[in-house]
Each structure stands twice: as structure tokens, then as C-alpha cells.
């Protein structure tokens, strides 16, 4: 036990004597949170549209002003040539063309229906889908007004209307930041934990001190515990720090029990740190270790459900994702913070992490050799 204490003491001394460490621990998380949370958003604002109104009637103008008046749209161009609008889209100046054909009003009044056209830039499928959804909503809204205007109360009596009312659970204002912050916090502790632990033992290999340690009677388990505990403490602190920043800057909800968060985090960090340790046992230089860690980190993070939905991944990828520790912890964080989930709700993810921790750590201990 005392041996472990001496290693921990030494690691802390070295970490804090390293001048670049403190900024990494305190400044990087804040910067990352502020930039990523504000930048990585799916919210649609300022969809740039080009209006081709060939009808120029009061009805068509009303429709166009519906779009112009919405905070989500910005009319960039008004033209009578569809070709000109298309050119703008090719140049990337507009995201959508709204075309109202000639005779729109007449048709609407005489025949009871008329058509308009949306042309949407779908290079980014997700954005295009959202643009379409927003535009359809505006059109529906407009449709209802038109019906109201052109019918007498007597006629109205016969019309049955089904209205949908939305209620968004767990994130009632559809605040994207609320959704992103917990995920980004996971990213943060993952990066810190994986890189620090991955580079640490390799560094001792590089400078040669590992040999000096290997000739001592120290036990493998003592050495590994002494190496993991400092980074575990730093990463736990990092998480607490990040949560406070998230609360203060973005006022993220904390519906569930924070104890649950830290309990899961303690297991999760054990997984990540052991993973870093495993990497450092199979590499010989800090450079190699960085590359290997980086490779896994990118795969883990892209498949974690942070930016894309796991449910929309193909089945094989979803199966593969069971090996992704980041996925489990992001789910736990979101469930507990946003939904207020209890232990019973997250237990499946939690136990998965526990099994993962045991497996990866025993693998790392097996791989670490005092004798070559």
C-alpha cells in the first residue's frame, strides 16, 4: 500500500511540474465546451432561400412573407428566373429555392388547390431533411390561414380539423446545447484519460527509468495501480469541473442523481485508463502510443452517438458498438442528466462498463511485463 502511495506522489509531482499540464486541465475543457457546444449544432437558423414568385398575387406574396418573416429563413434573392435561382444554388449562395408558379392564386381559388415547389440543396442529407420539415410546417400553417379566409363560418362548421400538438419530453425547449454538453464532457474526460495514461508508461520506457523500476521488487499490480490512480483522480476532477462549467455557462439540467454520474464515471474512467495502459504496453514510443490511442479515440467517438444517432446505424455497426465504452457513458450521462433516470434505468449500461473494466484491465496487467 505504501509503495503505491510513493508512485502516486511521484506522478502528481511530475504532472504538475509539467508547465503545459495545468492549462490542459483547466483551460482546454472550458474552451472545448464553449466552442464545441456552440458550433456542433443541428439547429437550423438562417436557411438562405431564393424566391421565384411568378404569380405576384397577394396570395403568393403572403406565402413568401411567411418564409421571410420566420427567424429560420433569410431571403437572399428574389428573381423571376428560375435559372438565376439555380445558379445561386450552384454557387452555394442559397440553400433552398421557393418557386411559386404563375396562376397560383387563380388556381387556388377556382380549383381549391395549387402547387408550389421547394428545391433543396441536399448535399448534407440531414440538413436537407430538416429544411424540408420546417418548410412543410410553414406551408401547412399558411394552408390553414387560406382555408379560414376563404370559407364562411357556416361552411366551417362542416370541416373537421385534426390538430397535432407537440410536447417535447426531456428537452422541452429543444435546446440543442442541453443535449450536447453531457456528451462533450464525456469526450473531454476520455481524451484526457486515454492520452495521459497511454503516454505515461511509454515515456518511462523512452527515458529508461522503467528498467530501474523493473529491478525493484515492486509488484505489477502496485505499479499499475500507482500509475492509474493519479490520472483517475485528475479525470474525475475534470468531470466535476466540466459539469460545473456546463451548469454555469449553459445551465444544463441535472435532473438525476449526480452520485449516479460519478459512480458510472469511476468505472468508465477505469476502462479508459486501462485502455491507455494497454496501448502503452504494446508501443515503445510516445509517438506510437499517441497514434494508436488516437485511432481508437476517433472510432469510439464517431460511433458513440454523440453526433449521430446510434439507432440509425446499420445493425452490424450497432452490434460492434457494444465494444465502445464511450457509447455507454454518453448514454448514462444523457439519461441521468436530462431524463433523471434512476440506477435501474441505466443498470444495463453500467454493468456493461463494469465487465469491460474487468476484461480490459486484466488484459493490460497481463500484457505489462517486468521481464522481457
Amino acid at each position, binding site marked *: 500500500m505504501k509503495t503505491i502511495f510513493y508512485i502516486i506522489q511521484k506522478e502528481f509531482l*511530475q504532472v504538475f511540474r509539467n508547465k503545459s499540464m495545468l492549462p490542459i486541465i483547466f483551460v482546454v475543457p472550458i474552451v472545448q465546451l464553449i466552442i464545441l457546444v456552440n458550433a456542433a449544432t443541428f439547429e437550423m437558423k438562417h436557411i438562405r432561400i431564393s424566391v421565384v414568385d411568378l404569380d405576384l398575387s397577394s396570395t403568393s406574396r403572403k406565402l413568401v412573407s411567411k418564409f421571410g418573416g420566420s427567424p429560420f429563413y433569410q431571403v437572399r434573392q428574389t428573381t423571376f428566373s428560375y435559372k438565376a435561382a439555380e445558379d445561386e444554388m450552384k454557387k452555394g449562395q442559397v440553400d433552398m429555392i421557393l418557386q411559386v408558379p404563375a396562376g397560383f392564386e387563380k388556381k387556388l381559388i377556382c380549383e381549391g388547390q395549387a402547387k408550389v415547389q421547394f428545391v433543396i440543396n441536399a448535399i448534407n442529407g440531414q440538413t436537407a431533411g430538416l429544411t424540408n420539415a420546417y418548410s412543410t410546417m410553414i406551408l401547412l400553417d399558411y394552408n390553414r390561414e387560406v382555408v379560414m379566409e376563404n370559407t364562411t363560418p357556416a361552411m366551417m362548421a362542416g370541416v373537421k380539423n385534426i390538430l397535432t400538438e407537440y410536447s417535447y419530453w426531456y428537452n422541452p425547449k429543444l435546446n440543442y446545447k442541453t443535449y450536447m454538453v453531457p456528451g462533450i464532457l464525456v469526450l473531454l474526460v476520455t481524451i484526457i484519460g486515454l492520452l495521459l495514461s497511454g503516454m505515461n508508461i511509454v515515456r518511462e520506457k523512452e527515458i529508461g527509468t522503467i528498467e530501474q523500476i*523493473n529491478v*525493484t521488487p515492486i509488484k505489477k499490480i502496485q505499479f499499475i495501480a500507482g500509475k492509474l490512480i493519479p490520472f483517475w483522480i485528475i479525470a474525475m476532477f475534470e468531470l466535476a469541473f466540466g459539469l460545473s462549467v456546463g451548469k454555469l455557462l449553459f445551465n444544463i439540467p441535472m435532473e438525476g442523481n449526480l452520485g449516479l454520474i460519478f459512480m458510472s464515471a469511476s468505472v468508465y474512467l477505469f476502462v479508459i485508463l486501462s485502455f491507455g495502459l494497454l496501448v502503452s504496453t504494446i508501443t515503445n514510443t510516445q509517438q506510437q502510443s499517441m497514434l494508436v490511442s488516437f485511432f481508437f479515440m476517433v472510432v469510439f467517438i464517431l460511433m458513440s452517438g454523440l453526433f449521430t444517432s446510434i439507432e440509425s446505424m446499420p445493425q452490424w455497426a450497432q452490434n460492434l458498438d457494444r465494444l465502445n465504452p464511450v457509447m455507454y457513458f454518453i448514454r448514462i450521462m444523457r439519461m441521468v442528466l436530462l431524463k433523471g433516470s434512476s440506477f435501474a434505468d441505466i443498470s444495463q449500461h453500467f454493468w456493461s462498463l463494469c465487465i469491460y473494466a474487468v476484461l480490459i484491465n486484466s488484459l493490460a496487467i497481463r500484457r505489462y511485463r517486468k521481464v522481457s
Partner: protein
Amino acid sequence: MDEPTEDIIIVKDLVKSFGSFTANDHLTFSVKRGEIFGFLGANGAGKTTTIKILCGLSYPTSGELSIAGFDIYTQREKVKRNIGYMSQRFSLYDDLTVYENIRFYGGIYGLAKKEIDTRSKSLMERLGFEASRNKLIRDIPLGWKQKLAFSVAILHNPRIVFLDEPTGGVDPVTRRQFWDMIFEAAHDGITVFVTTHYMDEAEYCDRVSIMVDGRIAAMDTPDNLKQQFGAPSMNEVFIKLARATSPPVPLSQGRGGAGGEAANNTESVKWT
């Protein structure tokens, strides 16, 4: 204490091969307690390989080894408790202070806090390091670092200390001081196993073995070796041996007798 002539390192038929390359080819030797044993050889002769095996850092391919009375295969941790090691590469932490390094190594050998403090205090007094107690290792001169590394290697009072080219790159004055420390340790009963390729240092050893191409080409006291090879210094002995065993020696052909004589001598040494 046991009788002073007890063999503290016993090596029988040690072989270490890396693929088809044999770094240690059937080494057999023993070192007596309290001896300063010089393990000499040219670069790449296999010295570091042997020392790593003796310290338990590397597995031998075959052979019997007993270190401080313990078997290297089955009692590895007990062996480690009784040895100290100072590697060729620098073994202290650059970003820790002198005292922090001592405390760390003392700590992982399981010394009590009080013990660490008293030993580090007397150690620094002896080395005259008191003023540098809180200096980072990276800020002190190389010679000091080597002396400190040696002191740290014997901080836990091991029975044997292995030194792998401890004086590489150190100035002659510091080297001399370093050897004074070695004598002192030997005087205190610590067996010293030292590799070097400075032949003047070989003269300080009680007994030396000279390794050429993975084999022990000669082993005796420096005086006996000089006599045997008819050489005035260990340097000459070493050159004669190294020439005789590496086959193409155009230089020695011109000198006629000297090369041949050395070769004969080597043969006789090998078989003794």
C-alpha cells in the same frame, strides 16, 4: 554472516539468443561476496545482455543462475530485493528534485519514511549535495547525476550492485571519485558487478572477465592477466584478446609473433 568466500553470483552455462544471434554463448562464472568484479568487453560483446539477465530484467534462453543465494527463475522477487542496479541509460527522473528521487526509490523499496529521510540526509552529506537537495536533476551536472544514481542504487543496502557502464561520458576526476564510492560500497560488504570499456578502470577490479563475441575469453585478476599475456596494462591485454578472436586481423599479420601468441593464450584460457 556467512564465510567471506561464499559465491554470491553463480552462473552456469548461460545462453541468451535472439533468433539466430547468440548474445551470450555458454557463460560460466561466479563472483565472490564483497568482490569488485569487472565485466569487460567491446561494444556489442554482450555485456548488457548478461547484466540484464542477472538483474531479472530479461529471461535467459537456458542456463542455471543463482543470485545472492536465490534462483533467478523461481525466486525472482527475492533476488530483486537483494540487488541494486544502475543502468547505462540515465535512471533518475529529470523533472524531480534530488530529494524527490531518493524518496521515490526508497519508497518503492519499502523503506519507512524516517529511514528514507535519515539515509538521504547522510547520503547528501557524503556527496556534498546538501545545497542541491531541492534542485531538479536536469539542472545538475552529469558527474553528479551518476554519483547520485549510484547512491540511489544502493540506498536499500543490497547485497549486490550491478553497474552497467556507470562512468560513460564522465570526466576523469569524477570517474576517480565514482570509483572511490565503489570501493566504499565494497568495503561495506556490497558485491560490485561492473561493466566498462575503460581499461584503466579494469585495473581497480579484484577480478575481471573479458568478453569477446558473446563468450568469456579470459577471466582472472588484472595482475595475473597482465602476466599471462605479457602485457604492461589491461589495455594491452584487451587489445590482444580482441584481435586474436576476431578472425580477419590484417594488422597483426605484420607483427608476426604477437598476434599468434595471443591466440594461443586465448585458447588456453578458454579451456581452464
